[in-house]
């Protein structure tokens, strides 16, 4: 049987969506409460990692393929850079918070910090995708005991 036992699989099926949702929540409220792009991105990645552990790599990769993850990785970084550069066009300097200047929101509201939320989303995408990639790539190699010696086997 591929993956872990039935109990783990069932529980994973129930909670994977909630973990993903929690990740999105952490990303979106990064400017109001503890958390932010990096922490949220790690949680997003961990939902996929849980899927990998419970069902095996194929299932997780069918949801988010390596190519897709690599594209998302680049897109996240480019998004971050684009917003920063837009600050140069719209606000006059690199990294200027131009949204907050033109539409200052009320404090402690979701739409109150201007660009910060956009930065958090970009970072969340990048960290989530790249951490998942790291896990998949490193887990392509498995150490097994063979004739009393450790041996590494590369999965394809």
């Amino acid at each position: 049987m591929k993956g872990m036992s039935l109990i783990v699989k069932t529980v994973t099926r129930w909670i994977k969506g909630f973990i993903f949702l929690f990740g999105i929540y952490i990303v979106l409220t990064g400017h109001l409460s503890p958390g932010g792009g990096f922490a949220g991105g790690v949680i997003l990645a961990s939902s996929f990692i849980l899927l990998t552990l419970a069902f095996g790599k194929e299932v997780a990769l069918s949801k988010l393929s390596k190519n897709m993850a690599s594209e998302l990785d680049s897109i996240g970084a480019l998004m971050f850079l684009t917003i920063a550069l837009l600050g140069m066009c719209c606000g006059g300097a690199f990294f200027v918070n131009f949204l907050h200047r033109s539409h200052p929101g009320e404090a402690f509201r979701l739409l109150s910090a201007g660009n910060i939320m956009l930065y958090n989303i970009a970072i969340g995408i990048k960290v989530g995708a790249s951490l998942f990639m790291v896990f998949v790539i490193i887990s392509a190699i498995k150490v097994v005991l063979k004739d009393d010696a450790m041996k590494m086997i590369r999965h394809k």
Partner: protein
Amino acid sequence: MSIIPLFVAIPLASAFLIPMFSKRIRVFSDIFANVTTFILCVMSLGVIGRNAVYTVGLWKPPVGIAMALDGWSVLLLVTVNSISFCATVFSIKYMEQYTSKLRYYSLFLLMVAGMNGVVLSGDLFNLYVFLEIASIASYALVGFGCQHDELEASFKYLVLGSVASTFILLGVAVGYSLTGTLNMADISARLPHDSSTFIFMASCFILGFGLKAALVPFHAWLPDAHPSAPAPISAMLSGVLIKAIGVYALIRLIFNIFGLTPVLSHILLFFGTASMVIGVFLAIGQWDMKRLFAYHSISQIGYVMLGFGLATPLGILGAIFHLMNHAVFKGLLFLTAGSVEYNIHTRQLEEMGGLRERMPVTGFTSLVASMSIAGIPPLNGFWSKLIIIIACVQSGHYIFGLWAAFVSLMTLASFLKVQKFAFFGELKEHNKGVREVPVGMCLSMMILALLCVGMGLLLVPSVRAQLLDPAVASLLRGTEYAAWILSKG
């Protein structure tokens, strides 16, 4: 609108655009990387002679993050970006031997972004972050071939580099606890110079940046890491990386933040002379071509440190000029070593010989670079070494001048060895079929060779006033740097 942040933004953007777009069209990565480095090169030539403080996000220093452009940063910017352009031109054909060119260009441009960031940063923690970007990219690039030697060298470099980074971070932390600020200018203004915490912080920084710059007690990783990388990367690492993240940062901290004291000056003199002498002695016995060049990098960085340690205007001028020259001729030497390796697939000097007949361009450019590093008169290396030796004599450090002259002779000897065994002499039987390398590789070597011949012209007074004099002035003004940044911001 200022272009200062674009020096970081452009290479970062293209580092992430390349893997997105060049999966389908393979030529795209070559064109894109070369265009990027060319634009950066032109931009860096465009900022010569300018002085500016850029406030990121319009937050004024000392609260916000500042990027500062003065003579010393401009000089490094020009060096970094011109050498990286030559290296990318060289990579087009050379990197065909390796599998994943996209990732190579991505990492390369990340490294360039990191180095430009280090050079422009006016904030201590930002300097650390950019330094880590450049270092992580370089760790991966050293191990790019994934063979036994490359992986071992990369791991060694990674461990020592991380220890260095941790010490730098510790220094940043102590500095923050001491002054309550991270802006380099503000730190300089508030630093209590007589406290023991200051000494602890300064030694953390000297240890960290000394490791990054491969000064002699900390040099063990360099002769492994630099030869193992692909040739254009060796040229970048030896040519500019150790200068941008090691020497630049150390000198900026010592001259402009701490203020040069006699103790610090003696530390620089000691490290400089030790690196100079020990590096050349280790180099002369090597039979691996790139390893020999790598040991010479240690030795030449010693000259640079010696010049800075003298702390006279002439000494600093010599050091700065030698830093630029070393980037050019050491870059060229590693590229020629790369061409030789490209053709005959070995770096051992014994298996070469007579390659001059078969590879005229490589042979000629290598001769120019060797004579330049050894200090033969009309070439650039001669002028900078001469200035450093004169500065030694002028400031009464005769012993150091004597060592410098002696090391120069030893350098000449070891490069005569390289020329004799590799390019002159009898052509070996198994090398009869060797051909000259492709045009792109020749082109970048020719550019660097021309620079070797022509860079002596930088000392002509009207040209010197553009590039070298502002750099010397920005270091000599010492801790007035702080007042300059805080008033401009």
